[in-house]
């Protein structure tokens, strides 16, 4: 399956400085591990079409309307307050990064919603066990021109903070800034050497229960966090992190950090041991992949064919099956033609199933939109024999044939009645059925009609 990620990071010299850029890349990497082909469409190139089967919109600031012909998923990872029903209802799947949000919208009609919280790339964010080298209380954030409470509390409490970010000078906090920017590649090491990370959420995020990815990045690095507080965060992280909601609670948390760091560190690391497996991009990709592949497959069974192109592609198969039926009749088969349809496409199924001269049974490797779950030994068919076996060139075919092509052909032959025929894709016929007799092979047509040597149709 080919997937396009609509990534809100804007194309330009600072592309790689955007968190969404790295978010999209990490997601793509994990999806590719599952077999997907992934392209990134950065803003403003969201109208690009690379022939993808599915689009994933990483919803930040920008909205997007997905093309109806493609499977579509919107993943709301920030700014949940800006989302409108009309926008998300156009997507086949809506992922929200909070249970709170999910509960609020799941019952709305016309929406398929699931929870997919923020996560981290565990191939780069991981703990190295060197806790002795951790130094400083850090805060990685730009001011965006507004005071951030957690930093105000730190300043008020006299807690020295190592700030990485821009625009703090105007707020009189420039003296805390050690650097304006940290390269994403350097961020994991920065967290691994940080003793405690301060964290806060935009108010709307906290309101909707959105936990930001810094929490998971830090936890994956084994780094304790002192953050603002909301109930979803408490639910997910429990006492694995420190919380503050005002100056006093900040002071208490810092006291605990200063005087009981072994416990603070231990709790953070135990938390990640407990939840880490569910908060990786791999976990999210698996969640997406599972939904996408099932939905894609089922949706195809509708033979929804907006431009009729796919229907046209079924024509050669219909034609060769007609010839095969004629041949079998001539050979004296008068009953309904016993037919096994292997690796069926929705269009092939539609064509064969509608043919009144055929008694139809479909099969494929593993689970899928067919009758019989098969393996390479064709054990699922027991003693049944067929007048015709039709093979379609879908992706399932390679799995079904396996390594032993000769054995596959022999097993097929054993499943044929006397005078039985095989309809197979021409491109595979020569390799799969070497030595068989081509009753009708036409290199110009996509399907070949074959019989084991000696049989007479």
């Amino acid at each position, binding site marked *: 399956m080919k997937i396009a990620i609509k990534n809100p990071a804007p194309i330009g010299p600072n592309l790689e400085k955007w968190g969404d850029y790295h978010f999209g890349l990490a997601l793509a990497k994990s999806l590719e591990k599952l077999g997907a082909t992934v392209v990134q469409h950065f803003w403003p190139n969201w109208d690009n079409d690379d022939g993808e089967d599915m689009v994933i919109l990483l919803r930040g600031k920008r909205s997007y309307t997905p093309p109806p012909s493609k499977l579509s998923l919107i993943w709301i990872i920030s700014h949940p307050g800006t989302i409108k029903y009309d926008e998300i209802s156009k997507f086949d799947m809506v992922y929200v990064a909070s249970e709170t949000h999910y509960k609020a919208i799941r019952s709305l009609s016309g929406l398929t919603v699931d929870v997919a919280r923020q996560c981290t790339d565990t191939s780069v964010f991981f703990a190295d066990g060197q806790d*002795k080298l951790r*130094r*400083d209380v850090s805060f990685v954030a730009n001011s965006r021109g507004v005071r951030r409470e957690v930093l105000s509390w730190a300043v008020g*409490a*006299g*807690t*020295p903070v190592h700030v990485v970010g821009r625009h703090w000078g105007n707020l009189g906090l420039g003296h805390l800034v050690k650097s304006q920017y940290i390269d994403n590649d350097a961020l994991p090491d920065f967290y691994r050497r940080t*003793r405690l990370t301060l964290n806060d959420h935009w108010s709307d995020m906290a309101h909707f229960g959105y936990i930001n990815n810094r929490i998971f990045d830090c936890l994956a690095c084994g780094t304790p966090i002192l953050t603002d507080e909301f109930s979803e965060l408490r639910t997910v992280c429990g006492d694995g992190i420190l919380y503050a909601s005002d100056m006093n609670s900040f*002071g208490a948390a*810092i*006291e605990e950090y*200063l*005087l*009981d*760091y*072994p*416990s603070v560190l231990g709790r953070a690391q135990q938390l990640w041991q407990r939840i880490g497996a569910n908060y990786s991009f791999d976990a999210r990709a698996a969640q997406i992949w599972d939904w996408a592949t099932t939905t894609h497959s089922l949706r195809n069974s509708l033979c929804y064919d907006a431009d009729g192109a796919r229907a046209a592609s079924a024509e050669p198969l219909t034609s060769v099956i007609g010839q095969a039926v004629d041949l079998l009749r001539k050979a004296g088969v008068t009953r309904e033609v016993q037919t096994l349809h292997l690796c069926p496409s929705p269009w092939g199924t539609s064509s064969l199933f509608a043919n009144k001269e055929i008694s139809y049974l479909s099969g494929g490797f593993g689970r899928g939109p067919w009758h019989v779950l098969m393996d390479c030994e064709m054990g699922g068919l027991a003693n049944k024999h067929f007048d015709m076996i039709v093979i379609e060139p879908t992706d399932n075919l390679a799995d079904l044939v396996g390594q032993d092509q000769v054995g596959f052909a022999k097993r097929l032959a054993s499943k044929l009645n006397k005078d039985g025929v095989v309809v197979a894709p021409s491109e595979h016929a020569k390799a799969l059925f070497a030595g068989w007799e081509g009753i009708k092979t036409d290199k110009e047509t996509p399907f070949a009609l074959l019989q084991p040597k000696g049989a007479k149709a």
Partner: protein
Amino acid sequence: MSTSIRGNFDGVKENNLIGWVFDPDNHPAEVMAMIDGEFVAFAEANNYRPDLERAGFNNGLCGFRIAIPEQFLEGGTHKVELWLEGGQRRLGPALTFQSPDAAPVPPAAAKTAAPEPQAIPASALTKASDDKVAAKAPPEAKPSPESKPAADVQSPPKAQPVTESKPATATPAKTAKPVSGTPAEPAKTPAKESKAPAATKEVKPFVPGKGKAALIPKIDAKSAAFNTIQRSVSESSIFNGAIGTLNKFCNLYADNPYYERLRLAARGTTRLDCFVQISNTLSRVDQAREGQLPKVGPLVSIIMPAHNREDLIDDAIRSVLAQSYKRFELIICDDFSKDNTVAAIKSFKDPRIVLTKHAEQRGAAAARNSSLKLARGDIIAYLDSDNVWHPRYLEIMLEELANWPGNMSAYAGYFDIDIGEDTIRIKKAEIKGFHLEDQLAVPFVDLNSFIHRRQLYDVLGGFDERLARRQDYDMIARYCWLREPRVVPHVLNLYQRIANAQQITKVQKEDTKSPQIIADKIEGYYKDGLPAQLPSWVKKVSVVSWDMSRNHFAKAYCVAEALSKHVEVEMISYRFFDEEIFQPLADKKPPFECKYFEGGTFPDFFGNFAKGMEAITGDVIYAVKPRLTSFGLGLMANYHTGKPVMLECNDLETVVNNAKSTDTHAEKQLTDLFAAADKAKVPYELIWSEILDPLVAEIPTVFTHNINLNLHYDRRCLYMRNIKDDSLYRPQDMDRDAIRKELGFKPDDRIILFGGLVRKHKGIFELVDLLNALGDPRYKLLVVGSRDTPDLMKLSKEHRDNITVLPPQPPEQMAAINLASDLIVLWLDPNVPAGQYQSPYKMSDALAMGPTIIASPTSDLADLATRGLMLNVPFGNQKKLVTTIRRVFDQPEETAKRQQRARKFFEREFSYPAVFPAFALGVSKLEKNKVYPVSERFAEFFAEYRRRTLAEK
């Protein structure tokens, strides 16, 4: 000289030289034995022999028997000579004897040749000067009246007494061994040996040390100067012992230039004390350690400058390569030699030798600095290219530094060898205790026998290249300024003054510029302190005092104030008592940032404890006293930030509270605190000191000011004295008479000052008794209490006539009071442990301002009295105290001298300018950004303590 002397050298019997001598005018006569030209022993001819009795010689009491040393019993032919009157007369002709080979030989072969025992009349005894004549016409031996051989003396057949006309050193027998006065060849490497045959007559390869003979005269053993002097029997025994053992080592280690050169120098020496030192070194070092291999320790960098030393440098290098301690690098800087010095160096192929060269002559200081720049070792040693080390020099010095990790340097004694055109002698061989002002007046520490940790170089810099001479004097003065070096009580190395060599002492003798530069520098050090350098990462220091209300705050404050002149400082402290701040400092305006927090008890105090930790913004933490809110705070801060912590221990905290004689120091495990949870709620309770004290061992830099604390902390401490602001403690700025008048004293009053906290263990009540014992109304006691203690109140009430009591005084006033006083008595009760671990502030005051200090010999006070800085009287010996006090006034010149000496000592170690270099030295032991294991352990413990305490709450 007696003319009636009679005697005979009977021969060799069973490894002994046998004979007899009788001098009726000088009995018992002394016989000097030499074998193969080497001195063997002096022996008294006083043994009983029946044959001599029968012959009528002194009732038979004039025989002698001299054991032949081992090295002459290992095969070969040896020549024996016996001499009388210190080598003036020969006892019979020389003879040769055949020593059995090391391999087993038939018993008969082992027998040695011995002439017939003969009694030789005085006329037959030849003067040394007549040797030549005697050799030509050996005196005929006349049989004595009863000259039959004694039963125990064998007379081997054909024994031919031989007299030699040539000096012993020229006999062929010597070829098997290094010849006296002839330096042994350097150990050749195989590579060098393989080149040797290629040399032809035309090509004259450079031979290291070939010109040495022209520089170092030879004295043969018989002509040794000590032979000639009048000696007692015990003195002879010292010569015997020294030379006998030296011979043994010369024989054993023929390739080592040390023993041979020392023996040569000894021959020209008559000073018995030198022989005592030779004997001491040989017995306590060479013999005591024979066969022992020292433990491998740190790398030692040996710094050697060289300029035109082709004839001498091989001895120096060989003495380095012969060191028992093998882990060294010898970095030689050739200062543009024009002779074959470089070739001489290169003839040694040892990979530990590093050669660097100057492209122009820049002088010894620059050459040493060039070597120092290359030094990789933790320990630095120096050897000049014309001197020679004892083979165990490095071993012994490294042991000393390993035993005293807090000391930065050490020195050993050396044999000062004077080598003239045709004379050689040990000029002196002494070792004396160190006091810098003594060293500055008449230097006695030699750079070649001085070793130090590299931190001194890192912090204080290397040699002053402006100096044409006395660079070593300048450097030793700087390196020993803050703390005396360890004295290694052995005379080890050979410092050679060679008349014919171009040595700096001689070449630059006329240079007057260098001494003036040094004098100016030293004056500056006294005034402004020793220039020192901090590493660039240290920009700010956090001084942490556990409490600010009481007197313990003063030291932390003084350190902070002194440091603030050199580096940014912040002071962090807690207020645990009612006093807002330690009262004498109440009006001070600190020139540094102060961060003060309220004290309290746990669990409420956790918050402020954490705040104190967060307040630390310095790059280095200087915690004062191993208390929870100073040292404990520092450890917690180190745990979080990796900022290094240094600790000053100026009391033994476990015995200092309410000090009494029954106090005993106790150390406890961290977890013991959980069993004392109630007490532990008070952050300055004893239990905290008991669990923190053992942790001191685990941090890199610990300061103290007291030998007993230094010993308590395993001799690891640097020194940070109880310092005073020198700008306030300036006698020259004050009018002593006016101050005395103001205080209500008459001009002839003799004021005894008691300053500080009035407590029983400080001896205050004994002082009151003293006034009565002195019985002189001129003696007055002036008490300046730091606060109202019960003891002080009692005192004021009971003795108001002859005691003046003043309230606590600010520092400037204390300076004036000290100037006004005549003496202070620091009579610390040795039975009260607290006193053993203190350095009284009033001592600092007195050193600065002049009153004579009379102290009990407790901790450092004993050593300081030995160094002439104060007087000691044992605690409780009032009679001696009375006489000592009177002496102070009866001997005004001595008192004034002591006063001047004390003032210099104050300026050097006790004044504000002393703080920064001492601190810098402490920093040099620190690593930036390193969490100590002890900090982690303490943080885990403290977290557990907090959890338990909060759970209780």
